[in-house]
């Protein structure tokens, strides 16, 4: 009975400890960041994410003179939506909207590794657009544009910031979005991204 009580006490202590050390699932958080296409076209990014599933692995080691050392690894499935704007003064402005499912692993040092896949839609807007019809008639279009659907995939790396009241995490990502029907081709559109994630509500 004493052993069971001791185990329960240890477990509750570890659980209390992990709440400050791991990313909170079932919490809506938002992120903003810098987005660029091949580091040439700069842009900004905004999005929301929500943890769907998480699995926390706890390890406790007792070292002489140092007491118990608890290490925590977290595996998560995160759903996210994102809207990016990419711009270049001499060519089109692009809106890139993605919906992704992501696997995210947080290590004992709170580094986060991630990979994911999802759907994407990109719409490009052109300045000074003209349309020429079959008869050769030319008409001006104030908002010429073209849109492409596709699949996006990404890998990323970052860090979870324990107990942070503002910046919850930062991530660096490389994504390839395969745009379907771009010039009758499947164009891989590469983006790099720095995301800064924030709690919807500051940690109490």
């Amino acid at each position, binding site marked *: 009975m004493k052993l069971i009580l001791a185990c329960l006490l240890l477990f509750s202590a570890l659980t209390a400890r992990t709440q400050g050390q791991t990313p909170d699932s079932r919490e809506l958080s938002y992120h903003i960041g810098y987005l660029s296409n091949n580091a040439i076209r700069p842009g900004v990014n905004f999005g929301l994410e929500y943890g769907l599933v998480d699995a926390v692995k706890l390890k406790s080691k007792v070292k002489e003179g140092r007491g118990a050392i608890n290490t925590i690894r977290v595996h998560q499935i995160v759903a996210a939506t994102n809207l990016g704007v990419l711009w270049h003064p001499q*060519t089109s402005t692009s809106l890139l909207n993605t919906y992704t499912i992501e696997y995210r692993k947080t290590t004992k040092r709170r580094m986060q590794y991630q990979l994911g896949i999802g759907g994407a839609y990109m719409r490009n807007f*052109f300045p*000074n657009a003209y349309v020429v019809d079959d008869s*050769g008639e*030319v008409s001006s279009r104030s908002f010429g544009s073209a849109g492409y659907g596709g699949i996006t995939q990404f890998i990323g790396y970052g860090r979870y910031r324990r107990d942070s009241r503002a910046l919850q995490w930062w991530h660096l990502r490389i994504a390839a979005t395969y745009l379907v029907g771009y010039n*009758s*081709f499947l164009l891989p559109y590469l983006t790099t991204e720095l995301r800064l994630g924030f709690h919807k509500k500051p940690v109490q």
Partner: protein
Amino acid sequence: MKKLLPILLVAISMAGCQDDTITALNETIFVKNNGADMPVYVRGNGASKCFVILVHGGPGGNGLEYSNGESQDILEEKFAFAYWDQRGQGMAQGHYTQSDITIGQMANDLKAVVLTMKKHYGSDSKIFVLGHSWGGTLGTAFMINDSNRVLIDGWIEADGAHDIPKLNVEAIKMFRSISAEQIAEGNNVAKWQEISDWALAVDTNAITSDEGGEINSKAYEAEQMLLDDGILESGDESFAPLTGPTNMLTSWLMGNYTSGVIHDEVEASSMTDALHLIDVPCLFLWGKYDFVVPPQLGKDGFNKVSSADKELVIFQYSGHSPMVNEPELFAAEIIEFINRNK
């Protein structure tokens, strides 16, 4: 105050410089035609009301590849240049099918670009078309159409490939003759001998598509040897900055794809017999040592067009790109031609 004065003077002088460049165009127009959205980057002297539409090489190149370099610096001071990214190349995009990637459709795209330039800059604008290499194929396809030709004020073909089967035969003849010359002069003997042996083995009555590709790669190899030996002017080849509007990865991927789709049609395209239809002022500019598109094609062009005003210039120290090898002379010829016909 004494320290601020020089800064103020510099600022005022810079503002003064800006006044001089008010007429310098630097804008992008998008032309939508049959599913393709094609950027046209217009740079240079808009006040001249003379616009040169640059039809780039490839297939698989992009318009802005031609915008950097000494010849363009000179030319853009005099006229405005429209660097057009063709369907499926450069930063052109849109929705269409593979069956829309044809020489005929691209010639129709060029017509759409000409019409848009007239709409955007005024119907009194003078329009010239300059096609280089594959741009010569496309430009010729545009020019042999009666309804297209009347829209422009002059046609400039620079090392243009208006007849690929003939180009292959002439290139083999050139490999044989120039390699003999170079071996006799003791230049790069082993390499020229290798090219000579290869060229002698090609049956010019039945050049295959694969041999056509080999001719193209040997042509650049031969040109590089002439450049290394100082027979060609090294010129000033500068590249578009990575921060420019052309995303090199997208451009490269799209260019290769489009080039692959259109390859068979390009390899079979022969328009020498239709050149007589061209009756607008023409300027043919060729490098003497162009193995990619031999000067014989320029001579054919000059001899066969019906134009009253026509001129052929062979640059003695140039290969496939005289705008790089002899930029000042190249620019001077174009300036003279446009001034004569604007």
